[in-house]
């Protein structure tokens, strides 16, 4: 309980901004037309690749001779980067078709 109260006190503004972000995510998407669902999903998926930053920070923290950990981090960066680049690229390809129609 004590710890929880402390946590709230220290992170009040973070709680505000996270809550607002949740509402914002809802509101942004709540009225999109059906035809845009798939590209939107794909674009959101690419954004979720932001987790790659975790892998980058991991590598930076790892001592340069701890090869096992570095290999792990390296794998993480490859996975994340594939998600990011592939995700945005495939979304762009999907959307190309909408543009053509204008």
């Amino acid at each position, binding site marked *: 309980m004590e*710890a929880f109260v402390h946590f709230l006190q220290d992170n009040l503004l973070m709680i505000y901004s*996270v809550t607002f*972000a949740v*509402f*914002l*995510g*809802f509101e*942004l*998407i*709540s*009225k*999109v*037309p*059906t035809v*845009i*669902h*798939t*590209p939107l999903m*794909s*674009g*959101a*998926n*690419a*954004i*979720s*690749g*932001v*987790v*790659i*930053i*975790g*892998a*980058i*920070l*991991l*590598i*930076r*923290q*790892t001592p*340069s001779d701890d090869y096992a*950990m570095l290999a*792990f981090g390296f794998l*993480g*960066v*490859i996975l*994340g*980067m*594939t*998600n*990011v*680049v*592939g995700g*945005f690229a*495939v979304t*762009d390809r*999907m*959307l190309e*078709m*909408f*543009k053509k129609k204008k």
Partner: protein
Amino acid sequence: MNSIWFDIIYFAGVLLFIVGLQRLGHPASARRGNLMAAAGMGISILASIFYPMEGSHGNYLWIFAGMGIGAVIGWLAAKRVQMTAMPQLVSLFNGLGGACAVVISLVQLIGAEQGATPMSQAELGTILLTLLVGSVAFTGSLIAWAKLDGRLKDNALVPPFPTIFNMALLLISLGLVIFMAVQGEVSMMWMGILLAISLVYGVTFVSPIGGADMPVVISLLNSFTGLTAALAGLIYSNQVMLMGGILVGSSGTILTVLMCQAMNRSLWNVIVGSFGASGGSGGGAASDGEQVAKELSKTDAAILLAYSSSVVIVPGYGLAVAQAQRACRDLDNELTARGVDVSYAIHPVAGRMPGHMNVLLAEVDVPYEKLMDLEQANNALPNTDVVIVVGANDVVNPSARTDTSSPIYGMPILNVDEAGKVLVMKRSMRPGYAGVQNPLFFHKKTHMLFGDAKKTLQELLEATKVGV
């Protein structure tokens, strides 16, 4: 350099994500929106590489090498994939994102076990949760990919009593997370068990769901990946991961709900319900013994078309299965050359993903002006001479209007029965996705053209060219 500058870049990255998502929601600005989000990602990644950090060991070679390899793989995959295989690819990418989170949390946990990085209970709990959700997103996305790609049958890998089984796995894994977090210590064994259970749960969560519902599942798993990114952001106190992840998590959730609504179903029904799994394969046949569906020869159909003045084509999932878009376009060209007014009626949930039909028709350069949405089409249909239904079924099922017991009751449909004549191309009398019989096939205005849609269309084209 002061870290605040990098924080400002992170902030700009988050703003670009928000504005990008906003733009992505409107067809006209979606492409720009995607590019904005990509730009936000680019600056955020760069900022994270150079963010001032005490005790940084650099290791830039590892970072840039990994980024280079990932970028090439992602780029090639995105550029080479067939239009119709895009949903699978998105699912695969999503799985990779989940895997990345799994890798990160594993390394953190191993570090904690070796005592390298001391951790509070809250931190430990956050990392374990990242591991759990990331693993589910990882294997779940792989299963969704395999199903959409036709590599996995709908009933493969389904555990006995799937709903109960999955509920149990979920409770066990959450219990493990709490148990380990409260202990405040990492043991390799428990961590291994949690990882294994989470990975299995990802599989058994998705495997009972029908292949046709995969778009919804992918969207859901995508919001899971967003959640892991946010959790990882908490671990690193990194704003852009936190906020970007939250945005994807919440918008992915609402998008999932919207997708279900477009099919007139609830999310719960998609996850637990099995009609998605049985549809399409179920027996069916002409259940109503007394009703008879009339057939028509290709030549007669060709004459009918050539002498009509307006024709509306209704594409459905069968068009995608038969890859008949080119054949469809060819027939359209021939009829148009003969002075027939040809247009296409696109139902919002025709096919197996939103925009499926638009994608296929755009591939063969059907001009935008020829496409009608649901409302336009229903206004035009009463004045249409002939409707050609190419592998569509549920979206033209009149019982959605009248039969309250039907699973698709209430879904708005294309009222093709208001046109002069209806030609239906499909291979058999089997029902479509929703697994319900379609009275349209027995309607007095309807004639069936049995066979694969592509072949039927090609034969029609021949008959039109030669015969008339």
